[in-house]
């Protein structure tokens, strides 16, 4: 294993969508999320984290140390194993487990830390984003909340988005009854013709060192995952999505050299003046004002 990270980082991700729905709003019939006051499009933090998890799961294929705790689906082989268990002896021994935990806690005051470390060592997403482990109150075992070093905010589009309802038809009818009196079924999808989104994130070296042990190697994997997060996420709903910029600020110290907002303000994304309706990435300019960034902070454009 490589070393735990020693620097604070901040990062800006610019990603765009073309004729797709980057993040549906369950409150609005799965239309793209919009900030009602400004009309700017939103993509939630959890949406982006899901993509990162999915990428790591795809690349690492459940390799030890890179397991993913919050999974989209049950992998087949594990369901198989569960099936085997279900025909054999399958005690539900919650009580015994509680007893064991109590005993463990009495004999070993560090038990909860051990369990936490075990989880952090095996699961990439816990090491990165953290997780909530139950406080096992009965046994006064407190694995508690693991805060991961990586923190991501909501992504917001640069310009107000319009979402377009596209009505589509399908010739296959679901039920036989319906087939008697109609030939097609009508469906709907919402798309954003084009939008460029900006997300901002933070990495705390302290939490990495003191809590989860997030390493330099993990960091490289995280960058790789962010850059490729949409490459393996194509679907009918998403349209064309791509990460256009990943700008990483590396502080020289664990605690950082300057406030995060100064670094974020140094990245200016603007629609070009002669463009009224942005439809492609080239309609925007990205300027990085190096003079506003302290010299001790290293800036790297990763894409």
């Amino acid at each position: 294993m490589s070393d735990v990270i020693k620097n604070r980082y901040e990062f800006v991700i610019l990603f765009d969508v073309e004729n797709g729905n980057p993040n549906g709003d369950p409150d609005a019939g799965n239309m793209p999320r919009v900030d009602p006051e400004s009309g700017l499009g939103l993509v939630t933090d959890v949406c982006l984290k899901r993509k990162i998890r999915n990428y790591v799961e795809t690349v690492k294929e459940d390799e030890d140390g890179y397991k993913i705790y919050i999974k989209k689906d049950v992998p087949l082989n594990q369901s198989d194993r569960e099936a085997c268990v279900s025909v054999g002896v399958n005690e539900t021994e919650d009580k015994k487990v509680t007893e064991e935990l109590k005993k463990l806690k009495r004999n070993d005051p560090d038990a909860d830390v051990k369990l936490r470390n075990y989880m952090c060592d095996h699961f990439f997403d816990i090491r990165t984003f953290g997780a909530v482990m139950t406080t096992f109150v009965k046994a006064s075992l407190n694995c508690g909340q693991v805060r991961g070093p990586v923190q991501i905010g909501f992504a917001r589009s640069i310009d107000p988005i319009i979402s377009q309802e596209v009505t589509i038809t399908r010739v296959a009818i679901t039920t036989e009854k319906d087939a008697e009196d109609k030939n097609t079924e009508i469906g709907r999808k919402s798309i954003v013709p084009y939008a460029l989104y900006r997300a901002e994130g933070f990495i705390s070296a302290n939490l990495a060192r003191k809590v989860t042990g997030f390493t330099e190697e993990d960091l490289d994997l995280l960058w790789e995952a962010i850059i490729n997060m949409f490459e393996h996420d194509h679907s009918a709903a998403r349209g064309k999505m791509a990460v256009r910029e990943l700008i990483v600020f590396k502080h020289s110290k664990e605690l950082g050299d300057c406030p995060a907002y100064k670094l974020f303000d140094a990245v200016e994304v603007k629609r070009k003046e002669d463009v009224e309706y942005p439809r492609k990435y080239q309609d925007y300019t990205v300027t990085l004002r190096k003079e506003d960034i302290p010299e001790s902070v290293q800036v790297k454009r990763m894409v």
Partner: protein
Amino acid sequence: MGIGVKVKVWGDYALFSRPELKVERYSYDVMTPSAARGILEAIYWHPGLRWKIDRIYVNKPIRFTSVRRNEVKSKALASKVFEVYNGAEKPLYISTKQDIVQRASVILTDVEYVIEAHFEMTDKANETDNPGKFKDIMLRRLKRGECYHMPYFGCREFPAHFALCEEEKIHTAYENVEEKDMGLMLFGMDYSDLENIEPMFFRAVMRKGVIDLRNCEVIR
């Protein structure tokens, strides 16, 4: 109070969950004292000091928006982790397919506060520690933007930018509102008995945009 600090914090969103509405989360109108303390602790904390919030200034109008997200409803079970730790061949993860729920959060948008606070020394302080040292560290971090981890407004997806507040006179958004009663609010959690952690509440009254927490009555 020679050891007080004033910290300006701002951000796009904030969610200070009301304990009575926490499944579909609903934010308080303003920051709770415990959230303010959490922000300061994210910047600087040491076992030898304890932050006490004196006043919270509400610098921007209180506005809400709503976000519904897919969330998981389960947590990691310590018992399950323990079994796997001891070598049991069991799947150890949360399947979002089974555990997914859609939850709305009513959150604050475009917030800015000034937190006025001081700290008290605790008996865990080392011999070489003194209030002057702690204050210097805090001020240095505020000026340089250093922090232990990025502070946040209630939830980690809502980062809080921070800076030392150097204005003498703070202009709140409610200077013309003599008094606004915000009802009972969470003051913080009492961790003095770890076996029995209890919430504490207080009657929040905002006077001209300022919530004064000195000498407020804490209800358990």
